[in-house]
């Protein structure tokens, strides 16, 4: 079956196989019936032929008898008989015999004694060898019999010599030779062999067949319809006819027909059948091929279509011009492609409106209003000074610029598995940890923030070439529990987040302005990413409505790519902050001044200003340490 993996081959194989099976059945049946019929008809013909054969033999004997009777009536011969001069009688008998071309002749006295014998085989006065034949002639006026004389077959005719009563019996013998049989064969159209059986020994005497002389035939029942027998190369259907039968002697004729010759017609029929069969097979092949093609071609087209769909080409349409089941399948397939394309369009559009993760969630699950409490990390960004450039360029350019910026940024968010919540002008809101579970939401958010800054750096290079002002991006990140879900009306929903931690993230974004930093994170985020990112603590801030202050950190770099300078900078700032917090203001002042001088650090400038106000206002020293974020 390995070779028939193709549908077309298999269909061809089955159709032709079935066809061949049917043909061979038909052929077999025809063969059987024809052979049976041939055999039956030969058997019947042989029966008829047997009658004709016997009739012909009888006719011949009648004819010979009439000839012999005419001879016996010869008056001159009767006169010779009256002379009783044997030599003369014998001579006259020879004369008579030659008139009818008899091969042997006898003259038998009324007492069955042999008077004259042309063979001289029997002595004068001896009893005639077939007295029963004379007796038969006495009763019926004539007699004829097939006899064996010196192992030759003769048709022996006995008629009386009448003067006018029988005074002797004239016996004339006519050889049955090949010539006689050839005549009989011409009339009967069968092969004839004459055999004698003496004491169970069978002996062939004469035959129309070219048989070996000592051919021995097994003896069959004579009343059988016929029997088959073989020579070396021919098969014959034969009948055994008993011609003469006495106690220990039998003369039989075998009349037979060549089986092969009888089947000659059938062989012609066989050829005809074979030609028809071959033509039918060719026809069936073509038909099967055509059928297979009409079935397999659309299947192939459909397979191509499925493959195309699998590769995302929903526009692929199959072209099957038929109205049968396959045509319906093609139509269904095309409809499926159209629907898939439709769905894909929705998915793409939805992906533009909402984050791909949310889009998938929406497409795959039923949309339900409502939300859940999850720990998430929220990210807020803003472009510093964007409002300013909005006045400098045309609205078209502005939109183009903004779209360009937002495209890159949203791409970064997607790449870091974040959910883009919304754009608010130039601001971007995104979060991690919902709707899909993400244990590393803080890390992903921070990593994304760094990537966004890097992307912005590239954009700034572009903008610089176009002569646009340089923009900086402020990012605030916070981690904590919030309510997330589809929020809105049933007609218009947003998958968004609500909670204090969201507000903190927004505040932290704004706080960058104050500290001159780019990425600010809360201590809650810091706790989750401190092993992966280098950060410096900037301050403790008070969040509106909360008693507890929150430490805020600036993200410097990913730990794997931290430079020695950054490391040193962080350590130096940390030492300075420690001095400030333990109120060693002089030491702190020296340290911050050094940081400002060395790194132009805005945060250090801020602390130096605080130290200045500390010196002028000693009363509020404690309160000034905690910055109120709501400002």
């Amino acid at each position: 079956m390995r070779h028939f993996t193709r549908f077309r081959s298999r269909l061809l194989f089955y159709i032709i196989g079935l066809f061949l099976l049917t043909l061979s059945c038909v052929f077999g049946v025809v063969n059987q019936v024809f052979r049976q019929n041939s055999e039956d008809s030969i058997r019947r013909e042989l029966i008829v032929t047997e009658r004709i054969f016997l009739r012909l033999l009888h006719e011949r004997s009648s004819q010979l008898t009439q000839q012999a009777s005419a001879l016996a009536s010869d008056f001159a011969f009767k006169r010779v008989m009256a002379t009783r001069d044997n030599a003369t009688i014998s001579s006259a008998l020879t004369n008579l015999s030659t008139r009818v071309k008899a091969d042997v002749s006898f003259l038998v006295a009324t007492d069955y004694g042999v008077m004259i014998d042309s063979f001289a085989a029997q002595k004068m006065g001896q009893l005639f060898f077939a007295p029963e034949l004379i007796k038969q002639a006495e009763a019926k006026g004539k007699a004829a019999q097939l006899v064996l004389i010196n192992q030759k077959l003769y048709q022996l005719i006995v008629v009386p010599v009448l003067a006018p009563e029988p005074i002797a019996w004239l016996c004339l013998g006519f050889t049955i030779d090949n010539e006689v049989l050839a005549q009989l064969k011409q009339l009967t159209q069968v092969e004839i062999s004459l055999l004698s059986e003496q004491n169970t020994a069978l002996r062939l005497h004469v035959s129309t067949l070219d048989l070996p002389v000592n051919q021995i035939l097994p003896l069959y029942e004579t009343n059988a319809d016929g029997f088959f027998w073989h020579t070396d190369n021919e098969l014959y259907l034969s009948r055994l006819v008993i011609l003469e039968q006495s106690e220990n002697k039998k003369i039989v004729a075998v009349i037979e027909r060549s089986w092969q010759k009888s089947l000659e017609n059938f062989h012609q029929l066989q050829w005809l059948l074979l030609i028809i069969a071959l033509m039918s097979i060719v026809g069936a092949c073509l038909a099967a091929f055509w059928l297979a093609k009409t079935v397999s071609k659309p299947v192939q087209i459909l397979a191509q279509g499925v493959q195309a769909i699998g590769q995302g080409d929903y526009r692929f349409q199959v072209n099957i011009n038929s109205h049968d089941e396959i045509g319906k399948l093609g139509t269904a397939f095309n409809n499926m492609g159209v629907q898939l394309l439709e769905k894909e369009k929705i998915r793409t559009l939805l992906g533009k409106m909402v984050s791909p993760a949310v889009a998938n969630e929406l497409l795959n699950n039923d949309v339900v209003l409502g939300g859940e409490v999850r720990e998430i990390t929220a990210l807020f960004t803003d472009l510093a000074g964007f409002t300013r450039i909005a006045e400098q360029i045309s609205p078209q350019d502005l939109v183009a610029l903004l779209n360009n910026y937002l495209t890159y940024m949203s791409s970064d968010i997607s790449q870091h598995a974040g959910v883009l919540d919304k754009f608010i002008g130039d601001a971007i809101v995104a979060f991690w940890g919902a709707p899909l579970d993400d244990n590393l939401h803080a890390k992903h958010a921070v990593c994304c923030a760094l990537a966004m800054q890097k992307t912005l750096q590239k954009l700034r290079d572009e903008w610089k070439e176009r002569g646009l002002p340089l923009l900086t991006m402020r990012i605030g990140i916070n981690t904590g529990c919030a309510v997330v879900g589809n929020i809105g009306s049933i007609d218009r929903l947003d998958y968004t987040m609500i909670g204090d931690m969201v507000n903190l993230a927004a505040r932290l974004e704004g706080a960058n302005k104050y500290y001159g930093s780019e990425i600010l994170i809360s201590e809650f985020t810091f706790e989750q990413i401190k092993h992966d990112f280098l950060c410096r603590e900037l301050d403790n801030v008070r969040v509106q409505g909360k008693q507890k202050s929150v430490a805020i950190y600036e993200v410097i770099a990913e730990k794997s790519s931290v430079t020695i300078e950054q490391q040193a900078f962080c350590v130096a700032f940390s030492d300075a902050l420690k001095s400030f917090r333990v109120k060693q203001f002089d030491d702190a002042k020296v340290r911050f001044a050094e940081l400002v001088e060395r790194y132009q650090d805005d945060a250090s400038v801020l602390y130096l200003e605080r130290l200045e106000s500390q010196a002028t206002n000693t009363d509020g020293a404690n309160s000034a340490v905690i910055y109120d974020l709501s400002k």
Partner: protein
Amino acid sequence: MLKNIRYLLSLGALTFSVSTFALTLNGTVTNYDGDPIFEAVITAVGSIKTKSSQTTSPRKMDQKNREFVSHILAVQVGESVVFPNSDNIQHHIYSFSPANSFEIQLYKDISPKPITFDKAGIVVLGCNIHDWMVGYVYVTDAPYFAQTNEKGEWSLNLPADDYTLTLWHPNLDTPNNVLVQQIKLTTEKPVPIEHKITLKTTSRTGKPPTDDNQNSLYQ
């Protein structure tokens, strides 16, 4: 007619000399169905040698309608027979019988010489040109003989003696076609002898072919 006269004469003789000379022996020859057998020959040979008296000679066997009439003729040795031809065609009479072989070649309208039969025996007559024609001349040396009439009856005037009585018919179904019996005639009136015989069926009737036997083998 001749027979009837002979019959009347012998009847007269019987009437006149019953005791001394002759007794009349009557008989019938039939087959087992009771059908009379015509022209069968009865001969009687007694113990006393008697020279039989000559009957009217020559005797006659005619040929009418291409057959011998009579079919069978009994004659005594030495008698002669004439063979006239009453047909308007020629006949060629022959006999190859050892008892008397002769031939009268094709003739008609003339009366050929009588043939004298000197030897006892059966002379079978044929016609060379008519195969079916057959006639029998029964030449006997018996002193007394007779032939049956159409009713199968015969009678012989015999002196009292012991006799060998012989019945002959060409188709009689016995060896040599004879039936022999011994009888003793005293002066008392003899009991009639009834012969019941079987004739061999033969197609050789001596009659010309009819439509029925046209294909007869002996034609």
